[in-house]
């Protein structure tokens, strides 16, 4: 079957050629071309890999260590961010938080986030993270609590890491059960989300910047942003089609926050600020003010003036006779911009690159502070080649698209940020808010205690069989043995006095559902019993399978489950609880669970408990991949010991009779 070649194929082919050539400048330029030329995720991922291949970051204006804290699946966003940042000349070294761990990473001073020592922390939390009911009975309290929550997280990050914080605002879901009432009804979730965004925008302090995610969602379109299929399939809270756009927005704020925003817009005149050529058509023959094209030129002038009012500098760079070029400013009634709006007026027949160089000298700015706006592709190419530092806006062929081209150009969206920050910093300080927040508690223990977690052990049954089999099948990280029994095997275990348990976990905010499974069998029927060092004994209960969803990792539910299993084992007359960790290359997170729970190592291949705990701490944040690791075996004498359980999760057990 034959189909047309997609438009971004040429960009990807150019990227491939550049990589093969090994030329760093050409490769980075090809990456930038992909980032500016397409929003196809596949092309962006390819560009990201190309960047990774460039070992030397000498091409960059600046290198930054950036931690991306994503409430859900964040890997694609991090990859896209590296590409979008390259457009600004930023080289990023990144670290991405695990699924749903972003808050704990901030609260726990010993977390991987802190060990990474980020210079910038990007927080991409989905609106699903907000604790707003569909219709609140206490909207003011709910709102105040969320404002405090995010401000507290910012202040912890600022105090402990000194990192600049960039947070995306929350996009209210488009499918709203309250419909249009969601706008005005007090306590409506949609209204609350919007109020929170506004409140956060007012609350940002020194070193904290917001990305207006709702604006990005509008640009991407609701279909791309709220992609329900990939939410359910892979927990991508932001649709993959919108990820490059969000990355661009974050990179823009990032660039501005570290002082890389553009400062001067150098504009052409003929067919850029007005339609027609003033030297030939005369002032009366220009398209400006009347008709679709004329109105579009008025709007581009308005847009430029608004940028100027916000702090950007405007300069004219036109090939013209100076007197002709000034005529419309003096005589045309529909001109929005005036000569006073420009810091420089260069209407000559000189090469435009030479003029830009001259301007940079005169204004005392680097060429990388300039953006060049010209309708003529030949002029644009000339500047692009002679002055690669200058940002060149690719204006579309029709004036109706000019405003959008300018509005989406990297480095223009956030100018003035630094000056604004200074002002906001003062307000922030005067309110004494910083001191107040600094006093607030923020340990991981406090966080876990505040969660008020509860868990329920459910023996295998009709209602949970599918979920239990599924969880065993798909869990890789916290998977102790890699044993993945199916439904029939599980039923057989239960028939032979084995324990097959599901664990449901809830906290005061969310019901996480069935997120853990443990399968423990008497020595006689245990699948893994043959490996027990010194041999399995009668009276052993052997943990054949143990998986926990990454949703509840670091919540200590694993210890609560183990404690409950030990209690049940003792009740049933078992004398020893035995478990193993079988390295799979991906289950390093589960490696030390038995040691931390107070189990003793069996056989000589296991590390003593203290050494294991120490090495667990030392391995963070770059856990070894388990390459050299071998299976470790662990046991707990049920007569004399109980598993260590920090006690943050209160567990109940559902009776098996159900």
């Amino acid at each position, binding site marked *: 079957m034959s189909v047309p070649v997609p438009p971004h194929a040429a960009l990807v082919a150019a990227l491939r050629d550049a990589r093969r050539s090994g030329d760093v400048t050409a490769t980075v330029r090809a990456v930038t071309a992909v980032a500016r030329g397409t929003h196809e995720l596949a092309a962006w991922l390819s560009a990201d890999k190309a960047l990774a291949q460039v070992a030397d970051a000498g091409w960059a204006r600046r290198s930054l260590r950036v931690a991306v804290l994503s409430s859900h699946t964040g890997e*694609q966003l991090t990859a896209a961010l590296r590409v979008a940042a390259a457009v600004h000349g930023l080289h990023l070294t990144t670290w991405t938080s695990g699924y749903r761990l972003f808050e704990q990473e901030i609260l726990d001073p010993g977390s991987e986030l802190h060990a990474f020592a980020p210079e910038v922390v990007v927080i991409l939390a989905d609106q699903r993270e907000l604790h707003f009911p569909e219709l609140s009975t206490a909207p003011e309290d709910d709102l105040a609590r969320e404002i405090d929550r995010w401000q507290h997280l910012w202040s912890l990050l600022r105090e402990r890491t000194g990192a600049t914080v960039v947070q995306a605002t929350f996009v209210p879901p488009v499918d709203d059960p309250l419909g249009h009432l969601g706008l005005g009804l007090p306590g409506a979730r949609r209204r609350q989300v919007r109020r929170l965004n506004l409140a956060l925008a007012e609350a940002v302090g020194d070193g904290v910047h917001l990305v207006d995610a709702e604006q990005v969602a509008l640009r991407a379109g609701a279909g791309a942003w709220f992609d329900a*299929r990939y939410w359910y399939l892979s927990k991508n809270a932001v649709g993959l089609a919108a990820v490059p756009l969000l990355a661009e927005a974050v990179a823009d704020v990032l660039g501005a926050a570290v002082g890389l925003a553009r400062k001067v817009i150098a504009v052409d005149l003929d067919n850029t600020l007005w339609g027609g050529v003033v030297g030939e058509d005369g002032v009366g023959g220009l398209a400006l003010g009347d008709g679709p094209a004329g109105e579009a030129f008025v709007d581009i002038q308005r847009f430029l003036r608004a940028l100027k009012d916000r702090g950007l500098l405007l300069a004219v760079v036109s090939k013209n006779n100076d007197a002709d070029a000034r005529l419309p400013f003096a005589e045309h009634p529909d001109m929005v911009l005036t000569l006073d709006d420009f810091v420089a007026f260069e209407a000559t027949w000189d090469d435009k690159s030479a003029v830009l160089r001259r301007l940079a000298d005169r204004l005392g700015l680097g060429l990388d502070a300039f953006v060049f706006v010209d309708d003529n592709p030949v002029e644009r190419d000339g500047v692009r080649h002679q002055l690669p530092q200058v940002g060149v806006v690719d204006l579309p062929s029709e004036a109706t698209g000019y405003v959008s081209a300018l509005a989406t150009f990297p480095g223009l969206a956030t100018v003035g940020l630094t000056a604004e920050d200074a002002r906001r910093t003062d307000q922030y300080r005067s309110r004494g808010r910083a001191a107040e927040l600094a006093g607030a508690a923020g340990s991981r223990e406090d966080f876990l205690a505040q969660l008020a977690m509860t868990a329920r052990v459910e023996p295998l049954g009709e209602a949970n069989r599918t979920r239990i089999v599924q969880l065993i099948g798909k869990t890789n990280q916290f998977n102790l043995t890699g044993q993945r029994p199916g439904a029939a095997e599980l039923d057989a275990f239960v028939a032979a006095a084995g324990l097959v348990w599901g664990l449901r976990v809830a906290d005061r905010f969310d019901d996480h559902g069935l997120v853990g499974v443990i399968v423990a069998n008497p020595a006689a029927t245990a699948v893994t019993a043959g490996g027990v060092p010194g041999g399995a004994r009668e009276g052993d209960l052997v943990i054949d399978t143990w998986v926990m969803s990454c949703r509840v990792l670091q919540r200590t539910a694993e210890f609560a489950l183990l404690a409950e299993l030990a209690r049940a084992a003792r009740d049933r007359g078992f004398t020893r609880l035995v478990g193993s960790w079988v390295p799979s290359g991906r289950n390093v997170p589960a490696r030390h669970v038995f040691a931390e729970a107070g189990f003793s190592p069996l056989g000589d291949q296991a590390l003593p408990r203290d050494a294991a705990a120490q090495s667990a701490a030392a391995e963070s944040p770059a856990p070894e991949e388990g390459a050299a690791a071998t299976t470790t075996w662990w046991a707990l004498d049920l007569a004399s010991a109980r598993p260590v359980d920090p006690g943050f999760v209160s567990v109940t057990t559902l009776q098996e009779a159900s």
Partner: protein
Amino acid sequence: MSTVRDQVVEIFREVLDNPDLELGDGSVARDVEGWDSLAHINLMFSVEQEFGITFSDREMGSMVNFGELVRAVEAKLG
């Protein structure tokens, strides 16, 4: 113009960052370096985007080899 198969191969090469990747009908995830669960999501999404098609929820989870994927795309275009 190009064929559906060539273009799907091209998407795999981009997403898995292997310009020389060759795929046969029977190619499955575990035979192809880098084709892990995250890459699978990126692949499915990129194929959908490029051809302007939508896989059913069932297809998303059940397509096991490359040949099946190409036939599914062709069926939807066809």
